[in-house]
């Protein structure tokens, strides 16, 4: 028999909270879960009265819980915000079309207007077509890059300046680990921010899609609690894994996180906090500046983070931190320089070893192994830039030459990816276009707009 709820002492406990192991009944769990999200919203000043806010809705548990909780909290605490649902249709048959049905039901249940924006109309490519082109490996990169812009573009269309997403503590912890494993500290720093906004300085056009604020009200909410909230509230959500995602690197980080949670449930929030603290150590990071200096780092190419501006978890000390950070900036840069030199030397020596070692080079083995493994690390760093030493990027913000989206590069990542896709499109188009019998193939040709087919 279950023990009594630790809060009301009346009902039997049904839930064990991962963060503190407290045992609660469903009613007490609902109120504490909602209260904590309210606290996240108010302590970070996420919303302001009169604001129109788009909830990035996928039909999955996180965004469904987010929509439900925000509606509840807005009614309870009178935020005075206007909530709408914004969905992205990546064009994945058997996944997104089903989950969009859920979003449509949610729109009715929560009485929120819904807008759906498709990859095909934004980019001329559905994810099904992208996968057809690039294969299952690496397609998540496309999807992620496209999605970020898609939400911004969708929001801009609706005249909304603020998009909230359902990223939870597990997601943030995963992202922290992933960036740690990749050695991508600048991104680690940005991905831990609760608010990410593309700076308004980048664009004076109020309808520009480069000027949208993002926030994660569920950043400190455990995935477990989100699922339990959805379950006990009987929320209508959709659960099928993206059919293309099993190969994603994120999956490994996710499994690692879940294993850690089993051993020590507080590990997830601890990783999030470690991420926030590490973020403060990254030179040029915005973490801790409260958004004032958010223009230092561009966000356009962020998978989900974006350029940071968060008031982290700690209320005080942030500004003091910023000052310290400014002072330490030069020191950190110097320190970076040291690393560069080391890497460079190793890299240039190691180049031959990478090949040599493969053939079982026996001379000076130890040294060579060490060097070559270093060299490999450097090489892996980023494909073509193998020998460019790592440096915390001090990027200059600009706009993409092609689409106008905020980017540190001349052409934004989405446009680069699109260019690659479009280059090889005509060939495939002809092949597919002339095989009308298969229904699956039919679906693809329909989406392709057939311009090329007729042109050729």
């Amino acid at each position, binding site marked *: 028999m279950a023990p009594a709820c630790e809060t009301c002492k009346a009902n039997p406990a049904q839930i064990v909270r991962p963060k503190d192991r407290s045992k609660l009944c469903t009613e007490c769990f609902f109120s504490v879960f909602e209260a904590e999200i309210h606290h996240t919203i108010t302590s970070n000043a996420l919303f302001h009265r009169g604001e129109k806010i788009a909830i990035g809705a*996928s039909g*999955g*548990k996180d965004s*469904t819980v987010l929509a439900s909780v925000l509606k509840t909290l807005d009614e309870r605490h009178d935020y005075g915000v206007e909530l709408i649902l914004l969905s992205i249709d990546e064009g994945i048959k058997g996944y997104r079309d089903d989950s969009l049905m859920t979003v449509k039901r949610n729109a009715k249940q929560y009485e929120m207007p819904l807008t759906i924006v498709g990859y095909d109309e934004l980019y001329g490519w559905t994810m099904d077509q992208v996968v057809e082109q690039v294969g299952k490996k690496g397609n998540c990169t496309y999807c992620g890059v496209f999605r970020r812009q898609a939400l911004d573009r969708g929001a801009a269309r609706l005249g909304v300046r603020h998009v909230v997403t359902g990223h939870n503590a597990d997601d943030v912890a995963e992202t922290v680990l992933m960036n740690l494993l990749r050695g991508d500290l600048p991104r680690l720093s940005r991905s831990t921010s609760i608010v990410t906004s593309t700076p308004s300085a980048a664009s004076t056009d109020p309808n520009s899609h480069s000027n949208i604020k993002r926030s994660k009200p569920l950043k400190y909410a455990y995935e477990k609690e989100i699922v*339990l909230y959805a379950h006990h509230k009987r929320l209508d959500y959709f659960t099928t*894994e993206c059919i293309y995602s099993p190969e994603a690197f994120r999956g490994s980080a996710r*499994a690692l996180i879940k*294993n850690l*949670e089993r051993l020590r449930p507080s590990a997830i929030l601890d990783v999030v906090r470690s991420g926030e603290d590490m973020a403060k150590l990254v030179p040029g990071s915005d973490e801790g500046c409260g958004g004032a200096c958010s223009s230092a780092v561009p966000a356009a190419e962020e998978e989900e983070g974006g350029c940071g501006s968060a008031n982290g978890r700690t209320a005080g000390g942030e500004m003091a931190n910023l000052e310290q950070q400014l002072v330490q900036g030069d020191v950190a840069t110097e320190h970076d320089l040291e690393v560069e030199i080391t890497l460079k030397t190793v890299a240039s020596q190691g180049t031959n070893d990478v090949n040599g070692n493969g053939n079982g080079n026996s001379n000076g083995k130890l040294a060579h192994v060490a060097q070559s493994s270093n060299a490999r690390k450097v090489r892996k760093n980023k494909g073509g830039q193998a020998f460019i030493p790592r440096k915390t990027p001090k990027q200059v913000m600009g706009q993409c030459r092609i689409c106008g989206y905020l980017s540190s590069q001349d052409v934004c990542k989405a446009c680069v990816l699109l260019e690659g896709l479009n280059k090889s499109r005509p060939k495939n188009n002809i092949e597919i276009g002339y095989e009308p019998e298969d229904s699956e193939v039919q679906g693809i040709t329909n989406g392709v707009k057939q311009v090329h087919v007729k042109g050729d």
Partner: protein
Amino acid sequence: MSDQAPKMKDEDTLSITVEFTGGLEMLFSNERKHSLSIPIRNEDGTRTNMAALVDYLCQNLMKDPRKDLFILDGTVRPGILVLINDADWELEGEDKYEIESGDNILFVSTLHGG
């Protein structure tokens, strides 16, 4: 010790409902809800508990060969929540909970996208 279980009689079985959600139904013939009759005792004579049920589900109910998506290191995979009559199984002794007739056991995966 090993008293080979002969033909099952009604009093030897437990009628329970097992549900899979959050994407787990995919591993169980795409059926969310399963009504099962399981032996009340294990082969060694002990009462059927959650550990035995999980084992039973893997052996008898799961057609999908990817057992590791459901169990890992002999227990339910981390990231899958288990609710016994809508209460977290951590409150009921997890693996060691002895199953009663009429129990509703729910497995929810949290591993799927949101």
